[in-house]
């Protein structure tokens, strides 16, 4: 699993996090909520080992799968090849194919299976990236604003079937959209530079409003 011990990270001279402690609960879906620029992506990348913290330690146990904010597909590989790209190389060819096709079906990508990333829409590219992440062998799934580019219908369907795929695994979701957060996750956390605050899932709206107005007062009094 993932645990953060006294993690600090600066960008240039600007401290993003200071002395952050956090323990990822096993087999649950959690969401980090925060405005853009608060370091959500940085936090995810540190968890994935793509970024090193300046101070402190990030300990990870288990295989990680990642949905980036951008699709990050290979431009010369078609949708099917991209979706199956990170799958376990030991899988039998037929099983690999069957699982891929099932996933493409689920994400409404079947008709686009042989198209190249340059020939599909941004939303389809995002879904292909989601398919790749879900097909990869993983214990921990990290998602960076994964559903923001989807149309509402499909988003709702994904929210329906996702729990079946990620059952028993840990999922960390990062979002600025508290509705997605509330619909998908077991627990929601607010991200601030030195703290990760647990928020009541059913009370996110009020909490956010409270923070918002506090901020406004703060800047007004300055």
């Amino acid at each position: 699993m993932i645990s953060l011990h006294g993690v600090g990270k600066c960008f240039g001279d600007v401290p993003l996090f200071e002395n952050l402690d956090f323990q990822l609960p096993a087999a649950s879906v959690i969401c980090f909520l925060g405005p853009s620029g608060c370091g959500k992506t940085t936090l995810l990348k540190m968890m994935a080992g793509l970024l090193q913290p300046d101070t402190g330690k990030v300990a990870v146990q288990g295989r990680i799968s990642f949905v980036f904010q951008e699709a990050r597909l290979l431009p010369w590989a078609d949708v099917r090849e991209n979706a199956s790209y990170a799958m376990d190389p030991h899988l039998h060819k037929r099983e690999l194919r069957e699982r891929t096709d099932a996933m493409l079906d689920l994400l409404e990508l079947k008709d686009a299976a042989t198209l190249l990333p340059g020939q599909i829409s941004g939303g389809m590219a995002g879904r292909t990236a989601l398919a790749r992440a879900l097909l990869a062998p993983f214990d921990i799934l990290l998602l960076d604003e994964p559903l923001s580019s989807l149309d509402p219908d499909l988003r709702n369907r994904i929210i329906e079937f996702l729990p079946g795929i990620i059952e028993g695994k840990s999922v960390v979701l990062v979002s600025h959209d508290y509705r997605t957060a509330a619909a998908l996750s077991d627990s929601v956390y607010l991200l601030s530079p030195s703290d990760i605050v647990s928020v009541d899932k059913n009370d996110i709206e009020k909490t956010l409003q409270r923070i918002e107005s506090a901020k406004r007062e703060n800047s007004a009094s300055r």
Partner: protein
Amino acid sequence: MISTSRKRFWLVFSSLFGILIWKAISLGVNREIILPSPESTVLYLFGMLGDALTWKAVGATLRRVLLAFLMNLIAATAAGLASGFSSRFYYALKPLVTVMKAVPTMGVILLSLIWFNSETAVVFVCTLIIFPVLYSAVVSGIHNLDENLLEMHRVFHIRWAKTLRHFVMPSLRPYLIAGVMSGLGLSMKVIIAAEVLSQPGYGIGTMFQVERARLNTTGVFAWSLLVIFLTAGMDILFAALRKYYGGKS
């Protein structure tokens, strides 16, 4: 973009214009030994084509060009990959590559004639010229790899061999194509220049030297014309291969 017929028109127009100027100057000079006319050059070229020696020379030179070029393409790709991913390797190779780039061609040809037999000397000289070109192309291709995709490979722990085959090599494609395009023509020139001085048994460069020694300027012109056609032929062949093996880029 202009239409194909327009392209053809301008190609033919500029070629004819060039030949016309050539003809005009040759009329002005009026001495075949200084500047042969286009028609006598072409006539001489046709005569050459009936000579078995011509084909032996062309075959020997093309063989050297392909051998030297392919060897260097493989070596430069391997070294370029190593340097692109390891800055230790990059800096270790840097002095060698800099020397190869800076060393004067004629000096190397003369030295390699002292050191090697004419066959080896030709390929060696070509290596010195062509390796840095191809190597730099590969290194800059790797330095320009998509950071986001690299990160994607890291996070999913994609194996080294798969990364190379499905990500690195396709990314290098345009750089390699550019390298091959400029490199093949350059190899041809360098090999012929080396042949002129090293005089292997058969070779286009050897024939240049023979014609020059006989003060046969028309022959030198005809051989030049043949080399131009050969290089153009290689370009066309390569373009066709590229088309056949898929893709636009």
